[in-house]
């Protein structure tokens, strides 16, 4: 009896302890470690220049600036299965921006995903990548952001369903999925490779889109860079696999894609990747691009669903009449002939504009045609570099069924695979 009681008490104590532990785990305020730049950190104009470069490479603007909004004023919506969250204002505005954040708070946000008031941030903010950044670099970004014109404008409130609106839950998620150490150079590799690794894994946070995610929205690091998705767009496999990834691309082709968004024989970037190129990658020095290429070459090959392998386009034989057309793709062919062929060509090599050279693009061999559908609906534009030399948006022009037929034709024509897009999927993509 005694022992029974003892066990009960012990169990109760454990439960209480566990509960208290759990409460403490989820609700104990986050610490705020003091931070200091190393001696190597530049100062003055040099620091700001470094900060600007890092801010560009980290592509902060992509999420913190809306299409029509002021720079870094936030407000971009992220539509997730469990609700919508909005990127915050990161200008130096004291009320709505980060003007009155301390350096330590800024570093904590970047490395640990914790907000000014100790609240846990959602991993739409790629802190699992930024955690690998050096404190110096984070402080340089911070220094640059303080020079951004303050915009006194709040971000909309997040709209999340229970339990996802419970921020402390993120602590459990972080416990499981946050990297434990900052980036450490591999001394067996040269400086270029290490610079590439730092860019890909930390600063440019490529894996946030290109690495598949698990049930808990975590990046599946065992399949790193083997392809993921973002806002319905597919981010392709960029491992060194020959069939699924970049294994067949030359160094120059990878570099060209990264810096211009297109390379002959491998198609064009569109959607979020187009944006990453426009806002960030195209502005990086060639040495950075080469470093990324050097690193990507060593990413272990990962294969996937056979239907996700790239089909090489047979440019030389493709023409208006080259693919067998069934009743379900005839309409798509008509639309392609009218609206697409005059610019892209029947063989996809692009008539006038290298950016129209879609031939060989991974998107064209995707039976779900996710990216094809989206680029048709939204178009693809680059206002700064080439006003109007762009793919027009056809969302208002063609019906769901027409876009589906077009996408299915494009997949069948260029890859020989059967497209599976339905009108309902197009409606969802709008």
């Amino acid at each position, binding site marked *: 009896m005694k022992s029974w009681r003892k066990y009960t008490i012990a169990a109760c104590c454990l439960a209480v302890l566990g509960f208290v532990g759990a409460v403490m785990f989820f609700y104990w305020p986050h610490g705020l470690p003091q931070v200091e730049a190393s001696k190597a950190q530049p100062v003055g104009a040099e620091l700001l220049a470094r900060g600007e470069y890092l801010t560009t490479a980290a592509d902060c603007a992509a999420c913190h600036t809306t299409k029509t909004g002021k720079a870094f004023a936030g407000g971009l919506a992220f539509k997730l299965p469990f609700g919508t969250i909005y990127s915050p204002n990161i200008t130096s505005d004291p009320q709505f921006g980060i003007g009155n954040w301390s350096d330590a708070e800024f570093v904590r946000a970047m490395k640990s995903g914790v907000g000014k008031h100790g609240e846990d941030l959602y991993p739409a903010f790629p802190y699992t990548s930024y955690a690998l950044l050096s404190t110096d670099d984070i402080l340089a970004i911070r220094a640059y952001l303080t020079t951004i014109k303050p915009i006194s404008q709040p971000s909309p409130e997040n709209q999340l369903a229970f339990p996802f609106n419970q921020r402390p839950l993120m602590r459990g998620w972080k416990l499981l999925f946050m990297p434990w150490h900052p980036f450490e150079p591999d001394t067996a590799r040269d400086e270029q490779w290490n610079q590439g690794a730092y860019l890909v894994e930390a600063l440019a946070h490529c894996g946030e889109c290109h690495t598949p995610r698990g049930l808990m929205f975590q990046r599946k690091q065992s399949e790193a860079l083997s392809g993921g998705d973002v806002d319905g767009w597919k981010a392709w496999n960029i491992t060194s696999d020959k069939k699924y990834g970049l294994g067949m691309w030359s160094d120059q082709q990878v570099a060209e894609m990264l810096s211009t968004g297109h390379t002959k024989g491998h198609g064009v970037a569109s959607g979020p990747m187009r944006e990453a190129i426009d806002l960030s990658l195209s502005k990086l020095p060639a040495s950075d691009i080469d470093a990324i290429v050097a690193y990507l070459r060593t990413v272990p090959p990962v294969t996937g669903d056979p239907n996700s392998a790239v089909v090489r386009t047979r440019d030389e034989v493709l023409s*208006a009449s080259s693919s067998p*057309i069934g009743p379900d793709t005839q309409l798509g062919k008509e639309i392609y002939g*009218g609206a697409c062929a005059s610019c892209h060509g029947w063989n996809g090599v692009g008539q006038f504009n290298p950016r129209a050279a879609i031939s060989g693009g991974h998107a064209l061999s995707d039976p779900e045609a996710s990216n094809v559908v989206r680029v048709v609906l939204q178009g693809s534009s680059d206002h700064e570099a080439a006003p109007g030399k762009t793919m027009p948006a056809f969302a208002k022009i063609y019906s769901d069924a027409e876009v589906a037929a077009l996408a299915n034709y494009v997949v069948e024509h260029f890859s020989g695979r059967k497209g599976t897009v339905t009108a309902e999927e197009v409606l969802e993509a709008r």
Partner: protein
Amino acid sequence: MTHVLTHVTRRSFLTGAGLVLGLLVAPRMRAFAAVDGAVAGGGSNLAQLNAFVKIAPDDTVTILSKHIEFGQGPFTGLATIVAEELDADWAQMRAVHSPADDKIYANLQFGIQGTGSSSSIANSYLQFRTAGATARAMLVSAAASAWGVPTDEVFVEKGRILHMGSGREAGFGQFAAMAALITPPADVKLKDPEKFVLIGQQLPKLDTVSKTDGTAIFTIDVIPDDLLVALVARPSHFGAKIKRFDDTEARKIEGVVDVKAVPQGVAVYASNTFAALKGRNAVDVEWDLSEAEIRSSDEIAAYYRTIVTQPGLQAAESGDLQRNKSGDDLLKLERELLFPFLAHAPMEPLDAVFVPSSDGILDIYTGAQFPDMDRKTAAKVIGIDPERVRLNTQIAGGSFGRKAQFGSPYMQEAAAVFAATDRTRPVKHMWTREDDIRGGWYRPLYLHRVSGSISKAGRIIDWDHSIVGQSVMGKAGLDETSVEGAAELPYEIPNLKVTAHNTKLAVPPLWWRSVGHSHTGFTVETFVDELLEMVGADPVQGRLALLKEDQRYAAVLARAAEIASWGKPPAAGRERGVALVKSFGTYVAQIAEVSRGPSGGPVVHKVWCAVDCGVAINPNVITAQMEGGIGYGLGAILFNAITLGEGGAVVQSNFNDYRSLRINEMPDIEVAIIKSAAPPKGVGEPSVPPIGPAVANAWRRLTGARVTNLPINGLITS
């Protein structure tokens, strides 16, 4: 804008001599950047020698074309005819549209002013030759009297007036004003066709340059200051009426000025086209379908099948079909063919611009195929004196029959849209491509059933052909346009019966380039071809053996065979098909070479075409019309159908699903024109009917598959 209208003495120069003064229109006050349409009759102060010829001081000769120029070449053809008799130089010739006038500018085949039935040259040939010769005589008289020499010493050559004895010489411009005051001679001598110097030459077309540099003004380009652009929200179903509509959202759109109900739908008026488009999209209309056509094309075809074997309207009957029902020597064949509704889909959708002026004259700019009917209709709808309406025919971006409508239903809509405004601002009413594809006035859906027999020797013994479909002319009795090309066959057939059945649908019907021949030619020529194949006859030789007396049929067929090197086998994987159709007085034979394309349907590589249209006024235009008609007809038989879906709404909407032939599908074409002294006939339509059966016959010989359900590539519409 100030208009000075000198009332033209509307006396046809043919009926009586007399002085016809020039139409003087003061230069308009042009506001910056306004685009004005062409004023009918040319409009500037040119000396008018008769209803069809004006001459300017700079020697240019402007002919007034009573026929609309929408691509088939009447400007060039009519100017050639006038220039020939006038002895003008081609470089000095110009052409404009005549004013709208059913009397002076009547189509002599129709009795009213109108373009159609490929009749522009045919009906105008003598009239315009006379106009040219008369004008020449007046110039000669004027020059002779000025020079004080006898008229028979004055000659005209290449646009110069010459006096041999004195060596005096002048241009037309110098004597034009004087000539205009002379009483035209009652009868003039026309040239001996052997002496023609311009007719029969490859003269450059008059309208090419302005259509190459973008300066040609079509109706849609008429953009006066203060213009309202109006689009009409039109019903989803034929015969539907407005039940109610809500324009709240439409009125909120910037640029939308007004929204009004008109008999044809709900009109949205805006200060620019895009605002009108947005505004129309925003109008919420509920339609009353109680009197609408709610049957699908399939249901209509099924209904037609119940009629096709019934007794109908007799279009032709000879011999005795019953007598030869049996006989060992006879091979029998029976086919049913289904032709879909077809839209004309001219490049320029229907449009009209109304420009009121303070002096009470209403100018209408439109690509009118029946201009005076349009003018009178507009006046009636708007409720004003027709004399106060001036209709200015504009060059049009194609028509193919679309703009030729009895009762001018399009003008009724456009005029109603103008009438519903306060009538102080110019209004442009236009259709979009969707309005055009879904707006009706189609080539009707037809069901044919034909049975016949052929002897082993290749003689067709029986022929029983029944056609079901709407009467384009709206007749209760036999409509010749439904059976033309079927009721009179070029082939000798002792026992023949052709029956027609008129049906009534709420879908408005209209003639479509080549009218009845667009379907009868297909049935006749595919059926004959199949009969000949059954007895192993050669498609060319077999037809030649069957032809009646008329040698012109044989000549075009033989000529087509000659240029196609008929007899030499085509390349591997290809077959050739033949068709021979006379329409609108013009004989056309075509041979099409076809293979199976990678996508499974036919690819047409080359078409050889021989044509006999009588006197060839301008071989350049004739060749162009053969090429264009082949392309137009080919696109239709390969791809086109307007389908009423379940519930009766039109399935197609634009060029994505009612598609056009594209350049990569255009065959190479070789045209031979038969030299002929017969009166000239038209070329705008006759090249359309043969291409369908020529391709279908090649396809059947290549694949064994008979084409009885059009279009051949019916995938998107079936």
